[in-house]
């Protein structure tokens, strides 16, 4: 009896990895990915631009000033979406890392390469806007509280990932090493999320939570929602465009390498 149950759990994991593996590998075909990506691109780019422009204009010019923060609160309409994307971008890298380590998915490796710089840039914007917000409100550009420090650590994780994934002559080794870093670094994400609840911090807790009602006026919630959605689609659009370019580049390289091989082959034959 025991061996049978053991075998059945094995079968479950086997079929799970096999089935999900098939699902993922269907999209590993570069030709299929390029066709789908080209179709998806305008659906990300244009809504991203429209929503971001509407959200930013609404937030900066038409939403009300906060009762205690005044007009400084408008930094929020850039700061909160970038903070959300800084964490989500790294989550993307962590997912790519699992796909890379377990299923050796070639597209996940390329995606991890392409998410890195975009995520690092948006984390830098998050830190910069946070600093600009902190000076007039808290009275300081920077403090070493748990929230701020954990986001700074996230920024360094991005930089480390960017460097590591490009550090090897043989790309596959870089992908493996960076995937391990990407997964280990994912520990920082729950720390960022819950830092404001677990410890006393200068940074205020989240206004928008899964469990409770938002502690923010709806007149501010709307533009914030629009910029967050717009920035998220924009993040997706930039990563998709970079990924398509990377896939095309690798295809081009293979074609060029094949051509070079064909050209040099007849010369080899004619030499003797």
């Amino acid at each position, binding site marked *: 009896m025991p061996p049978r149950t053991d075998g059945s759990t*094995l079968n479950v*994991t*086997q079929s*799970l*990895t*096999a089935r999900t*593996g098939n699902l993922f590998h269907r999209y590993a075909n570069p030709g299929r990915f390029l066709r789908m990506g080209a179709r998806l691109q305008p659906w990300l780019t244009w809504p991203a631009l429209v929503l971001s422009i509407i959200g930013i204009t609404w937030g900066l010019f038409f939403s*009300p*000033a*906060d*009762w*205690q*923060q*005044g007009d400084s*609160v408008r930094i*929020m309409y850039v700061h909160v979406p970038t903070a959300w994307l800084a964490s989500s971008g790294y989550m993307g890298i962590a997912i790519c890392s*699992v796909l890379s*380590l*377990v*299923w050796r998915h070639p597209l996940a490796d390329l995606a991890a390469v392409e998410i890195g710089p975009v995520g690092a840039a948006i984390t830098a914007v998050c830190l910069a806007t946070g600093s600009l917000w902190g000076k*007039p*409100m*808290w*009275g*300081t550009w920077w*403090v*070493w*509280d*748990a929230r701020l420090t954990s986001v700074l650590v996230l920024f360094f994780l991005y930089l480390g990932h960017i460097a590591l994934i490009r550090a090897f002559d043989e790309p596959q080794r870089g992908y493996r090493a960076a995937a391990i870093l990407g*997964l*280990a670094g*994912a*520990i920082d994400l729950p*720390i960022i999320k819950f830092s404001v609840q*677990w*410890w*006393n*911090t*200068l940074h*205020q*807790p*989240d*206004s928008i939570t899964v469990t409770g*009602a*938002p*502690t*923010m*006026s*709806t*007149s*501010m919630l709307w533009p914030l929602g629009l910029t967050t959605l717009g920035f998220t689609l924009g993040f997706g659009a930039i990563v998709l465009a970079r990924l398509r370019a990377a896939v095309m580049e690798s295809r081009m390289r293979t074609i060029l390498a094949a051509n070079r091989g064909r050209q040099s082959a007849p010369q080899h034959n004619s030499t003797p």
Partner: protein
Amino acid sequence: MTRKSRRLWLVVACMIGLGSAAALTLSAFSSNIVFFMAPSQVQAKPPPADRTIRLGGMVVAGSVRRETVKDSPVAIFDVTDGQAAVTVRYEGILPDLFREGQSVVAVGTVNRDGTFRASEVLAKHDETYMPKEVAEELRRSGKWDPRFGKAPDAASWNTMTASDAAKKTATQTPDGN
């Protein structure tokens, strides 16, 4: 077990190990990660006079006194966490958000008499975001006094914003045209 499922379990095991290691480290260093101490903690276990600490809490309503000593502003106020209060003396310019009822973090040392000498005062605002008009309306109607605690639930005043905005646009449209 296929190579793929072996790798999957390896990754899962590594993540569990790493996660629990991080959790243990963080809970062990928890007291150092805390950005500030509460007045009750400071009174229960006063730190040595030469040690710089951060004291966090709410400014007690009616406790703020402002003086000018040799042309520089001095503020004296009480900071409380609801259980104990510590008197803070700060020489310098306070942040804009400083007010009675506001949360603040003061950086400095505890004097021998139990008062706190701050070298820096930071204002800590909460997670409530509310239009100015709504705050004034709540104050006028007596539903909320910012000096005595947190703003009421957003659900209770959100409709007020909407009706206020509607009123405003209704009055503004004839003016605008």
